[in-house]
């Protein structure tokens, strides 16, 4: 049962990253800076919510408490969510959203790549299916980084400011805690130290092309993976969950 709890917790971390970022990106729907970017972002949001759905289905199965993916998405409270702090940060302006997406996509791609080597057949299947979409997300956000970084003075300034703002949340992506170590030991989890090497290469490469500077590592935020979230999380859940909270069991 201890092992199952670890597995459940581990799946929730992956699922919640996708769910919360998917919800955040979906907030752009109908508000994008242009029709084309609006639909582009909405596609990404839908992909992410799709990944979350498959993962939460699996989490519910592992949990074995007769709960569904929907129960896990809509009936957990803030402390029950195990996503990293980066994905819950507000959309801000378009540059903020692109920076958040790029920093996360670069991580997510290599994370899923490594997850394909897991001993857990279900996680491997999910990773193989999702990584094609994640590769596209990465392409989308990386191209916008370059376009805006190497764009006008204004777009450069906004892009650089967005990077500086979000950098403090990047370290958590790679910070191995006891659960990460245990899952790696079990042959199921991903070695985040390796992911960081690939992430660094990728990020440095794109930042150079975008004529942006890599922010200095200063105080790095952490805690999301353990359920300790920023003040934004409650607001996200209030919007995401209100219908199931107000009308329990509602289906449509």
């Amino acid at each position, binding site marked *: 049962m201890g092992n199952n709890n670890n597995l459940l917790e581990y799946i929730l971390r992956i699922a919640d990253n996708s769910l919360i970022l998917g919800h955040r990106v979906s907030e752009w729907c109908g508000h994008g800076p*242009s*029709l*084309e970017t609006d*639909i*582009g972002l909405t596609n990404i949001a839908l992909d992410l919510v799709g990944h979350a759905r498959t993962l939460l289905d699996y989490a519910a199965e592992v949990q074995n408490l007769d709960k569904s993916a929907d129960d896990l998405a809509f009936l957990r409270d803030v402390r029950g969510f195990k996503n990293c702090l980066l994905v819950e940060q507000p959309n801000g302006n378009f540059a903020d959203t692109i920076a958040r997406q790029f920093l996360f996509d670069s991580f997510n791609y290599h994370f899923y790549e490594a997850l394909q080597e897991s001993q857990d057949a279900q996680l491997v299947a999910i990773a193989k299916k999702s990584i094609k979409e994640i590769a596209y997300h990465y392409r989308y956000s990386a*191209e916008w980084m370059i*376009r805006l970084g190497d764009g006008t003075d204004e777009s450069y300034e906004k892009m650089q400011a967005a990077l500086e703002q979000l950098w403090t949340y990047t370290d958590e992506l790679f910070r191995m805690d006891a659960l990460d170590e245990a899952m790696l030991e079990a042959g199921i989890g991903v070695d985040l130290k390796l992911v960081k090497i690939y992430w660094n290469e990728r990020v440095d490469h794109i930042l150079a092309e975008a004529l942006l500077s890599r922010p200095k590592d200063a105080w790095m935020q952490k805690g999301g993976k353990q359920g300790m979230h920023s003040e934004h999380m409650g607001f996200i859940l209030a919007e995401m969950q209100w219908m199931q909270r107000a009308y329990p069991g509602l289906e449509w």
Partner: protein
Amino acid sequence: MSNSEWPLWEVFIRSKAGLHHKHAGSLHAVDQQMAIENARDVYTRRNEGLSIWVVESKHITASDPEDGDMFEAAKTKAYRHPTFYDIPDEIGHM
């Protein structure tokens, strides 16, 4: 940010191998790469495509819809349709 100054592009999608590219619509984008990406997002969300062409709208030369004479001569030449041949039954549906 407004995309009203972004150039307009025409999008052509090939839905299946062997079929030709067909005009799907238009969109705005700042460059070729972005036009392809946007076309992917806007016009192939429901698995409509295997291949995308984009061309900036300004590069398309169009006939004048007011110029009725242009097609007039072809209207009375029914014999240009291959409908006067007898097709042997063994050929079946053509």
